[in-house]
């Protein structure tokens, strides 16, 4: 039972990690909690669903559709809601409020255009389970965990080994210095939104496969935010650690205490992190650079 629960927690954590890293990426660069990421996940998920309906695409292609539409959606959001604010050097709170607007807007947009009916992706890989002794695991969850890991490693490679990835890290480190060193900051920020959107769209499809497709799906971003806080906002690897920890923590709290206490304990842990160790597990201290 313990092993089964650990496995449940890890696979949930994988999804949270994916959500948190896309969320954290924007925090790294612009230093605000980007709740429009929930909207990006939502739009990515719905686009992938319609792409699937029209083209009967495979799991891989559906994920690709979701990721790309998420990326585009994030860039559109950046152009419409973030660029004007950056141009007039608006306070960070405006960015934050605008991002919440973006998340809500996408939810109501889906309600008004697509409707409130629930949808589902098909069983891409069948409903067969993999059984090892007492432990049972659905093929789909395992595949998703593997894809999450590949994506995370891919992202790390991109951020540390490519030129544009390095530019993102440079801007994250210090936006002004990077700009003085000749980095096109505006372009890098758009790029960051695109990469974050790719992850968001991908994550949205995962959520849709796991939890059905419905207009309130974007609200799950709160988990991504919690994972980022626990892992450390402002660090690149922190959200991954935070996401996996949160997934395991949630599963064990529900399994060994009670589901009704899980949110309470979660928020207490979150509060403790914010009070005692605001830099999160990763320990990178981020100061607002205004």
């Amino acid at each position: 039972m313990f092993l089964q629960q650990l496995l449940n927690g890890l696979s949930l954590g994988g999804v949270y990690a994916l959500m948190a890293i896309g969320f954290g990426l924007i925090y790294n660069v612009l230093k605000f909690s980007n709740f429009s990421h929930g909207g990006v996940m939502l739009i990515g998920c719905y686009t992938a669903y319609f792409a699937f309906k029209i083209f009967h695409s495979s799991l891989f292609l559906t994920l690709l559709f979701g990721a790309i539409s998420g990326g585009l959606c994030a860039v559109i959001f950046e152009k419409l809601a973030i660029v004007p604010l950056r141009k007039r050097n608006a306070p960070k709170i405006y960015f934050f409020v605008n991002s919440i607007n973006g998340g809500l807007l996408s939810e109501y947009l889906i309600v008004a255009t697509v409707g409130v009916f629930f949808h589902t992706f098909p069983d891409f890989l069948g409903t067969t389970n993999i059984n090892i002794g007492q432990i049972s695991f659905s093929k789909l969850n395992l595949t998703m965990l593997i894809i999450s890991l590949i994506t995370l490693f891919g992202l790390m490679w991109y951020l540390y080994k490519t030129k544009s990835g390095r530019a993102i890290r440079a801007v994250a480190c210090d936006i002004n210095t990077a700009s003085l060193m000749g980095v096109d900051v505006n372009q890098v920020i758009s790029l960051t939104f695109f990469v974050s959107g790719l992850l968001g769209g991908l994550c949205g499809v995962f959520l849709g496969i796991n939890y059905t497709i419905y207009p309130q799906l974007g609200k799950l971003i709160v988990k991504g935010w919690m994972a980022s806080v626990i892992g450390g906002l402002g660090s690149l690897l922190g959200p991954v650690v935070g996401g996996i920890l949160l997934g395991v923590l949630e599963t064990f709290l529900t399994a060994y205490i009670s589901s009704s206490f899980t949110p309470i304990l979660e928020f207490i842990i979150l509060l403790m992190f914010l009070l005692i160790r605001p830099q999160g597990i990763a320990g990178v201290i981020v100061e607002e650079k205004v």
Partner: protein
Amino acid sequence: MNKLKMIVILMAMFFLLFSYSWGASEGEILVGNIQDMSAGTAIWGQNDTNGILLAVEEINARGGILGKKIRLITYDTKGDPTEAINAYNRLVDLDKVVAVLGPPTSNVGIPLASIAERKKVPVIGDFMDERATTHSGGVWNFMFLTEPCCSEQAEIAASYAIKELKLSKFAVIYNKANSYSVKMAIPFMSYVIKHGGEVLITETYLFGDTEFRAQCTKIKNANPEAVFVPGYVKDNALIAKQLRGIGVDVPIIGNNSWYVPLIELAGAAANNTYFPNNMAIDIPRFQDFMKLYEKRFDMEPLIHACMGYDNMNILADAIKKAGKLDPIAIKDAIEQTDYLGVMGKIKFNPQTHRPDRMPLVMLKIENEEYVTIGEYLAPLD
């Protein structure tokens, strides 16, 4: 200059707002409708409203009631009890409706009960939790439920599982924040225990939860003969998927939220499920309704559309019987209801304002299809 423009525009807006006349014009009967039209249970609210609209259109086409046409005023509650109370107050105080049609959600029905008692405008709806229609001291005079209440449904499911399926060891997983779900789980468990069965494990979750694998793993470990899952449709589908996903293949016993669109959501994981429902596709009166509904709205109705349709027709009959547009007289007339609707015969027990022993259909899900087993009454033991 700009300011002046602004003031003029604002004044014009106010003028427009207040020129809208609240209250009925001559030759109209106003009926209120409070439903979740845009949030988590909107799929039901929209179906319920469509059913009501269908009935209103039919009634008006026949010339209305007492020579007046019915006008429906719908407010969106977003599934939030506070918004529902505001909507009810607004319907009663400003719009001056003669009666209100309520949503198929108990969390909204319960707080409405005491307010309706004060404001004396009747509410007909499908809030199955008994507390929406009765309190410890008796009946809520202005609340009416038009389907079997939670305990009847839970007992039909439990007695079917024990007597027909010969099961005795159960696990239960329900939504602790949803009064409908709680009020199904408790009578189910007491019925099981009273009839020599066992409840091996009780697990709970909350609104908005999507991850149930921790609970499902514990259920698997308890090794029950069946799992009772009385939640809302999306939760039921996710629980089915996650139970099957970790290898729990025993029968699932459900509630009346296991019908359409559940199979679409859960796929093969829904198989081997038994549940009571208000409706089944092979019942002729439902087929007639489906034809009507599909012609009007170009989609298949959910059971909530039947509820809305029946509720509106019950109200129309009551207004006719009352002979005047007085909410209290209408309430008295609703009490006398004896109506054969899409969902069956509805006749309120004056002590509870709920239909007594209305039959439900037991269904099973097999090869990703709903199979009708037959009609069942709440057990007397």
